[in-house]
């Protein structure tokens, strides 16, 4: 029995080797390289050369801090808007009695994924442009005389991000509400709680895991987004993702790009830690 178990353990380790190798070579190693490069100096053509320096971090938190904060702000705003739209939507879908209706609506939520993200984001350019669909429509109605400036603003970036990441908010909340036992609503009302209090004291706390997961799934990719701000935000909507992207082009700055990447990664890690702590507090004690 013992030997069988021992063998079992060994074979388990053997089975894990490809995964471990994969992670080491393709994840840990590049990360270490990026970390090292971020402390190196910029050479001709943007490559990294010796000696070591902390100059890039100084710039990141110096002149680029405005873009850092903007990224966090836009990602946070995106998360809040996704939550405000996504929670009622997920709640509505998961409380339908008609199973088919549920499945069709969920399918519709996921449907945009079937088209390339780039194309979908381009579509927003057509909608939001100065001579785009929305402005054209409003002008033809005579509601506005001058086209509204929507494209190449932070507003457009948030619209694009919300559009892109809304399903990541809807799906985990849907799963949470689906698991929620509506007997608790009866119980709360029975004990004298009106609809609002029932929601705040019972429904929301019990679906919080889904809310937290949704927020993490929206916030994290939003912070690092670069396609959406690139296409919809112009210079006013520039985010940290774009900045990093630019450092690895022709006249870029690889060490600076690496430093920005490391800072962004730290940001994501931080929000993950917040998520895990919130989740733990919710489950524990």
């Amino acid at each position, binding site marked *: 029995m013992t030997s069988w178990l021992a063998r079992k353990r060994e074979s388990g380790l053997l089975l894990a080797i490809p995964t471990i190798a994969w992670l080491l070579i393709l994840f840990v190693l590049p990360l270490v390289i990026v970390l090292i490069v971020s402390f190196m100096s910029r050479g001709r053509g943007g490559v990294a050369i010796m000696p070591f320096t902390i100059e890039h971090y100084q710039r990141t938190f110096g002149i680029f801090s405005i873009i850092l904060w903007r990224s966090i702000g836009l990602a946070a705003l995106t998360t809040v808007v996704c939550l405000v739209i996504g929670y009622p939507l997920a709640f509505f879908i998961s409380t339908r009695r008609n199973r088919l209706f549920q499945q069709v609506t969920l399918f519709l939520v996921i449907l945009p994924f079937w088209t390339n993200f780039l194309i979908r984001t381009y579509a927003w350019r057509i909608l939001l442009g100065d001579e785009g669909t929305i402005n054209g429509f409003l002008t033809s109605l005579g509601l506005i005389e001058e086209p509204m400036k929507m494209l190449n603003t932070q507003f457009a970036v948030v619209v694009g991000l919300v559009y892109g990441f809304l399903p990541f908010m809807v799906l985990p909340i849907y799963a949470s509400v689906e698991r929620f*036992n509506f*007997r608790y609503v009866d*119980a709360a*009302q*029975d*004990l*004298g*709680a009106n609809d609002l209090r029932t929601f705040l004291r019972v429904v929301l706390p019990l679906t919080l895991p889904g809310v937290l997961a949704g927020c993490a799934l929206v916030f994290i990719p939003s912070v690092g987004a670069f396609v959406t701000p690139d296409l919809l935000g112009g210079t006013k909507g520039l985010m940290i993702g774009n900045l990093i992207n630019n450092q690895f082009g022709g006249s870029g700055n690889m060490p600076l790009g690496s430093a920005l990447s490391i800072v962004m990664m730290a940001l994501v890690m931080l929000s993950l830690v917040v998520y895990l702590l919130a989740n733990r507090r919710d489950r524990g004690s």
Partner: protein
Amino acid sequence: MSTYDVELTDIVKEFESGGAIVRAVDHVSVQIADGEFFALLGPSGCGKTTTLRLIAGFEQPTAGHILIRGRAMEGIPAYHRPVNTVFQDYALFPHLTVAQNIMFGLQMEGVNKKDARKRAEEALEMVRLPGVGKRKPHQLSGGQQQRVALARALVKQPAVLLLDEPLGALDLKLRKNMQYELKALQRDVGITFIYVTHDQEEAITMADRIAVMNEGKMLQVGRPEEIYERPGRRFVADFIGETNFIPATLLGRDAGGQGRVQLPTGDVITALLSDALEAASGAVTLALRPERIGISAQLGSDDAEDSDITILDAILVDSQYIGTDTRYTLRIAEDTDLVARVQNVDGGDKAALETGQAVKISWRLSSTTVLDH
């Protein structure tokens, strides 16, 4: 002001299910007195839980009126009704501690935290669970959760406590104990209990009055002994305890609620007619409880004299020892078997009866009920 705590008048509740209209509650009217322990008894799907949910305010009746303490409940949401519910699965909030669960209802009333905490502790003591306030519901056993659910509802001091199969999830032994405790608790607090159950024994042992429901209709309402001794319908007699149903023909009604019926054996006997009996003559059913049938190898001389006693010849077809009792299957006519249950008093004096033996069976007039076929 009404003298009743809860009054239902001609309640109808219809649901739509797959395009069809299902009538879950069908013209139910009942009055429940203050301080009464009232049981709604019936098989699953009979409408008893729906009736409870209508009183609680989780559902609105399609037609009819509900009064609680004389106040019409139309348009009054569940959270404004003076009733509280103990749910079948307890529905204790899993994210709150036991104490927070009990305090929940008080805080909704605006009781401050300190007072709420004190009253929650008292409620826990009342259900004999002191000191578990800081635990989460999932850390308690089923029986303990049941008590917490009870405390959470009672701490609100409702006019009426609604209990939806509260003991259904507990094992047999615990259920028995809780039956006594619940009954004692109800007597102490003096609150009206409306108790939904499918367990006839539970209803009989606990309730002051029982309403037997089937297919949305309230078939009979009465004290346990009325329901057991004088069932109004075949369904009631069948659902509560074990009953022999003998096909019979009603020959005529006599004074004093009695009638003459002819049995399949050809014998014409006198039997008590149910108050609910509609037939004036013709095919009826004679209901007879197995434990009311006497059985002996030969006739006692006193019995033959007593006109209240019916005596028939029968063949003992089968006997089955079931511990406290022995069940005898007796054939009185072709296709007509009766079951008699005789208590085993002293180590098998009935063992003398053998299968295939001719015996005399007897019953008293008071044990009979003639029901509609």
